[in-house]
């Protein structure tokens, strides 16, 4: 009987801990994840903030770059190129909501990479951009 109660307590704690762990994703988690994914095909890969900045601020065959809407300063507010609506800063130091949820990060990479590149972004590209955004001061 006692043992049974202990198991329930343990299971409950594990569920709680799992929930908390999933809720609290950090920018470093995304950097590690995309870097690891990139290493599947390029074992020596290491994310570069410098490459990330270049990727973010240049066009890739289309009309827009990432910075068309987000500006070249990740700590600044951007403005949607079509609608004019304000876009909150991309740098986690300036906006704690950034790089905090897989659902949101994957949704926006998915949409915006298609808008800017006409294809999905590679894990290496995502790792570089995340590294650059994390480097940005407030």
């Amino acid at each position, binding site marked *: 009987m006692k043992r049974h109660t202990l198991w329930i307590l343990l299971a409950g704690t594990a569920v709680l801990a799992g929930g908390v762990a999933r809720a609290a994703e950090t920018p470093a988690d995304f950097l590690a994840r995309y870097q690891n994914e990139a290493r599947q095909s390029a074992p020596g890969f290491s994310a570069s903030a410098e490459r990330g900045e270049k990727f973010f601020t240049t066009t890739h065959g289309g009309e827009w770059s990432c910075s068309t809407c987000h500006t070249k300063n990740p700590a600044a507010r951007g403005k*949607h190129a*079509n*609608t*004019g*609506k304000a876009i909150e800063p991309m740098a986690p130091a300036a906006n704690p909501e950034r790089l905090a949820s897989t659902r949101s990060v994957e*949704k926006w990479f998915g*949409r915006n990479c*298609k*808008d800017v590149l006409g294809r999905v972004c590679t894990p290496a590209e995502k790792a570089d951009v995340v590294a650059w955004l994390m480097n940005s001061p407030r």
Partner: protein
Amino acid sequence: MTATFPTRALRALALVVAAGAAGLALADDDENKRMNINHPEYRSECGSCHIAFPPALLGTGSWRAMMAGLDKHFGSDASLDAETSAVITKFLVANAARRDTSGSDGRPQLRISDTPWFRKEHRDGHDGITPGIFRSEAVKSAANCAACHRNAAEGDYSERDIRIPRNGARS
């Protein structure tokens, strides 16, 4: 003493009724009926790149067509996962305009600013709208409701809250 109490109460009641009627009349003038945007998922998913437009501004056919083509949404990819898309479509259809918003070609109109109602309400000269204001730096696009309707992001399009920026000027 006993006679004044009901009289006072009646007077107070009359005041309350009058105030209520005035409020209703005002709401009617403001043309802000059925501007329901109170759906958390709709507001967060469809209120990022533009404000969450009131579902009542398009008919059900237009919203269904809109939600079926989110991967090519006015030149942007606005894809949603199937579950979220279904939940939002349900909200849009339940709160859609009763009128049909198909164009002259019979196809559902997707751009709110193309509908006859919008064009009539936002014609040059109407309510202080100046020619070219929609393309000005301050407004940029007819999708930018909040440039003039100050509380549009909350679904409030009351006429008393309209402030039209001076043409070409930043507000």
